[in-house]
């Protein structure tokens, strides 16, 4: 009984959820309607030089000249679903036709419509001194509606002689236009020069010389008066085991140098070292016992 109630309530919740989604989905992505598009080029004192009205999506500007100090004003009303709508982004983009650099102006909402205005000075602050032809685009964006990029046309921008702005630097230039004389030099990677090594002959000579003291010792030691191998006869088995063990330990070191790594060698050395230690202990204790017996 309880499980049935649970199932029914889950179903009800699901239906309500999907209904709500469907309602929202109905208005998830819709079209914006642009109306009352008016473009005015105002001179420095505020009087209108050119006034044009447009209907979206037809362009309206046919490259009129913007004298120095003039401003380009655009007013537009935006509606969605019949109601006045305030999108998140309303911008005017002026993109230079020669270099592809763009400056932007943000729209202000006033009494039901957006007003956007841009002057040469404002553009200079963004991209630097760059007179010439500019493509004017109205950008409107909002997550709940399809975005709009309304190309209004082109204007010819004149910069005033008194402007102190710098021309756009190489850093500012976009990848869209890349004049050839602007490319940075290609980096040639220089690998680290190998260390200076001596000629091979010198190394071999010194390697040979390094064996000379060893040979000298091996030749000299038997000539010392009193040198003998009596210790071997005193405890022959242990002597053999111990010296054999030591020799194989050194052989293990050679193999380690040639082939193995330390992680492989240490356990082997440890185990074999125990054997060498044991046989050495037996040998040395028997030798010391004999010595003590002799001393007594």
């Amino acid at each position, binding site marked *: 009984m309880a499980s049935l109630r649970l199932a029914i309530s889950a179903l009800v919740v699901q239906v309500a959820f999907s209904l709500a989604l469907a309602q929202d989905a109905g208005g998830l992505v819709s079209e914006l309607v642009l109306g009352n598009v008016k473009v005015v080029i105002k001179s420095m004192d505020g009087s209108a030089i050119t006034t044009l009205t447009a209907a979206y999506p037809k362009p309206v500007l046919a490259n009129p000249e913007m004298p120095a100090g003039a401003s380009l004003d655009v007013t537009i009303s935006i509606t969605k679903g019949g109601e006045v709508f305030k999108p998140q982004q309303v911008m005017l983009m002026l993109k230079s036709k020669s270099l592809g650099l763009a400056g932007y102006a943000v729209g202000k909402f006033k009494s039901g419509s957006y007003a956007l205005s841009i002057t040469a000075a404002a553009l200079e602050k963004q991209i630097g001194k760059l007179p010439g032809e500019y493509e004017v685009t109205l950008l409107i964006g909002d997550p709940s509606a399809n975005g709009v990029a309304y190309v209004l046309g082109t204007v010819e921008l004149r910069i005033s002689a008194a402007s102190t702005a710098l021309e756009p630097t190489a850093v500012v230039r976009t990848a869209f236009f890349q004049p050839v004389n602007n490319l940075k030099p290609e980096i040639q990677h220089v690998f680290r020069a190998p260390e200076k090594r001596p000629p091979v002959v010198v190394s071999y000579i*010194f390697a040979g010389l390094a064996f000379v*003291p060893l040979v000298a010792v091996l030749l000299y030691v038997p000539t010392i008066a009193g040198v003998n191998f009596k210790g071997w006869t005193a405890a022959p088995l242990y002597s053999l085991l111990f010296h054999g063990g030591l020799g194989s330990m050194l052989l293990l070191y050679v193999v380690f140098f040639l082939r193995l790594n330390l992680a492989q060698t240490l356990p082997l050395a440890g185990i074999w070292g125990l054997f060498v230690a044991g046989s050495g202990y037996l040998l040395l204790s028997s030798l010391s016992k004999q010595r003590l017996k002799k001393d007594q």
Partner: protein
Amino acid sequence: MVLSAIIGAFSDEYKKSPVRVKVLDAFLIYAVATAGLQFAYMILVGTFPFNAFLAGFLSCVGFFALTVCLRMQVDPANKDFAGISPERAFADYCLANLVLHLVVWNYMG
């Protein structure tokens, strides 16, 4: 004149030292000679590769130090080490040498 007298007296006294000590002295000179050779080579051609130079040089120096210790402990004239039997000293010497040479061969690369 005086120098030859000194050298003569030294060699006479030295002949009286036990055989073990003389053998160890020979090995000491061998270690010093090899170390000196490696040092001369390094001076001549530079320190690259430094780890190889250090491994070789310090193996000679370490061997020298261990042999000096053994000589001190084995020499009957040295009363400081009367408590340590020569066999025990030799066992320590063997162990220390094995460890030294393992480290040296590992460092040589």
